[in-house]
């Protein structure tokens, strides 16, 4: 068997174009998929006009100054702003398709926010030529306005709480340029109680003053409670996050696992299916299995060759990625386990494809046709499709090695979930595809 292994390596060495394609193609595809998954959509171009005079960009809420331009800066981190000088210019740019939308901040926004008598309004115009970007712009603006609303609500709550504290405890306050001293319920109660104490024991005013003092105390006690109520109104729903499945894998690290799995899949499938089909195309299959090597031995050799080559490519790829993304080299043995089991399962699937198709070109085509949808199906997140459809996708994904390999590599690289389950799954798939491949060799010649 080792002579066949060496022969295949020799043939590969003499097919530099094929080898280059076999290595470069999956790496490029894997890198592109990794980029697509780890990066969000590009920033949409949006016309931006602020009609707020520079001097009026700050608003005063309860004595605290807020710069509205800081919210614009946050929006700019998600869009590519194209500054315009008028609303007409903004609309022209939207209509011409130069920008996807326009965001216009009216001049009275700070005034409205300050008085709180009327809601402040920002204008947004959309170009819906590209539905994906339109949706993204809409979501971005909506999200930013919600963030701004939440921040302002928080600030207003803080101001209101300050006023309540002032009413309760008393103190100085500035309003519309004038300074006031507010007595406060606490001091008022103390004064009333002092006045009550100075009266004769049977004076009828004592009872009346006691009622006033009690009211002041009751009001103070209730104002203490209102602080909590106001704060809960400011943040009516808090989010408590608990991960029940999967690990805390950053998007970049998950993209590494995907890229490596895609690369492993392509190299192994194409190589295993191709080298087996080549034996038939070169008419050597019958000569080999006529006592020189068993059919099962031939399959083992092809799977082994594809697995070794694919693992080599994947490890080189991981070493390259490690230059840009932090990887835990201490988990290298687990990487090897994930790659090894995955490569064997893909290799077994590859020889099954090669055995069924019996021609190199047909084998390569089928390997592509099968592998791409399987990879994409395995990446469909739960909840993004109906429950029934997701169950179907899960079953299909479980029948092929991509998903368990991805899970094994995600575990090995990112400590996400256990690795034993995916490895057992891959071992079962290796056997199953091996049986299919062996059966296909009955009609291979």
């Amino acid at each position: 068997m080792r002579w066949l292994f060496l022969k295949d390596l020799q043939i590969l060495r003499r097919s530099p174009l094929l080898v280059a394609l076999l290595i470069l193609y999956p790496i490029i595809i894997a890198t592109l998929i990794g980029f697509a998954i780890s990066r969000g959509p590009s920033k949409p171009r949006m016309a931006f006009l602020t009609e707020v005079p520079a001097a009026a960009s700050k608003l005063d809420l309860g004595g605290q100054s807020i710069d509205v331009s800081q919210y614009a800066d946050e929006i700019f981190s998600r869009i590519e702003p194209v500054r315009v000088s008028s609303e007409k210019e903004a609309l022209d740019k939207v209509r011409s398709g130069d920008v996807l939308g326009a965001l216009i901040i009216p001049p009275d926004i700070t005034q409205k926010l300050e008085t709180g008598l009327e809601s402040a309004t920002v204008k947004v115009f959309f170009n819906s030529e590209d539905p994906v970007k339109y949706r993204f712009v809409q979501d971005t603006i909506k999200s930013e306005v919600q963030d701004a609303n939440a921040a302002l609500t928080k600030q207003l709550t803080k101001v209101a709480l300050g006023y309540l504290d002032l009413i309760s405890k008393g103190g100085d306050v500035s309003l519309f340029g004038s300074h006031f001293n507010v007595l406060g319920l606490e001091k008022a109660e103390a004064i009333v109680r002092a006045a009550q104490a100075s009266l004769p024991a049977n004076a009828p005013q004592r009872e009346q003053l006691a009622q006033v003092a009690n009211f002041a105390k009751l009001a103070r006690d209730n104002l203490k409670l209102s602080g909590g109520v106001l704060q809960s109104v400011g943040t009516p729903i808090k989010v408590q996050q608990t991960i029940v499945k999967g690990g805390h894998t950053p998007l970049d690290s998950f993209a590494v696992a995907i890229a490596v799995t895609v690369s492993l899949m392509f190299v192994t499938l194409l190589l295993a299916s191709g080298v087996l089909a080549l034996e038939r195309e070169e008419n050597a299959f019958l000569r080999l299995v006529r006592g020189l090597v068993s059919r099962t031995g031939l399959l083992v050799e092809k799977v082994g060759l594809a697995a070794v080559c694919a693992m080599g490519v994947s490890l080189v790829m991981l070493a390259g990625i490690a230059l840009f993304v932090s990887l835990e080299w201490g988990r290298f043995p687990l990487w090897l386990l994930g790659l090894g089991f995955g490569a064997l399962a893909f290799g077994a699937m590859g020889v099954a494809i090669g055995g069924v198709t019996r021609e190199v070109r047909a084998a390569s085509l089928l390997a592509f046709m099968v592998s791409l949808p399987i990879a994409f199906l395995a990446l469909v997140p739960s909840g993004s499709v109906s429950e029934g459809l997701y169950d179907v996708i899960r079953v299909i994904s479980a029948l092929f090695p991509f998903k368990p390999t991805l899970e094994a590599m995600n575990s090995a690289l990112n400590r996400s979930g256990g690795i034993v389950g995916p490895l057992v799954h891959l071992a079962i798939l290796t056997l199953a595809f091996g049986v299919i491949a062996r059966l296909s060799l009955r009609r291979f010649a």
Partner: protein
Amino acid sequence: MQEPAAAPAADLGVVLEATDIVKRFGEREALKRVSLSAHRGELVAIIGPNGAGKTTLLSILAGVQRPDGGRVSRSPEEVGWVPQQAALYNKLTVAENLRLFARLERCPDVQATVERMLQQTGLEERADDPVGELSGGNRQRVNIAIGLLSAPDVLLLDEPSAALDPRQRERLWEFIGALAAEGTTVVYSTHNVQEAERYAGQVVVLADGELLYTGSPRELEGIVGATDLDFEAAFVAFLRQRGH
């Protein structure tokens, strides 16, 4: 399963014997109780019209296919087999192909075997050329050389001269003749009846899976009873007489 050799065959100088071979493909009977025997150093030609079962019979003799009935006296490891289409790796050189198969055949001295085959096939100067760059005739020589690596007593050749030009064909038959002269029994199938007449000591005629004749080419001409016909015309007349 092929059964082991019948003991009497060797005693009679018969090195290959097939008895009552039957092969079916579904409902179709491709070989109907076909028998043949070949002696040491004999050249045996299997001829017949297309679809007669020539390649199927050779495949069974080679152990590539299993018969549904009958037996073959030698196991696959004991005979050399040369398929019609060259079973070679085009990216490897002549020497590398020979070396690979010599190793797989577990030849005791691989290098000596390769050198012997290069010399025997006259391809020493082309030893380092990739097989894919060889002419059809030279590819067929390498193809045959691989069949001879284990120095078998019997060599089975399926349409060995197909797709060769006349000059290449002539050289190929010289090579095969030399093998037979050294004692190798050569059983070959051909659709070119003149090659059977010129080179074979024994002719086996098949038609629709049925064995119609076994004997020398001259005897076949005698059966037809037309001495003025060439062998090809006599062969066609023979088939007509037998209803094919």
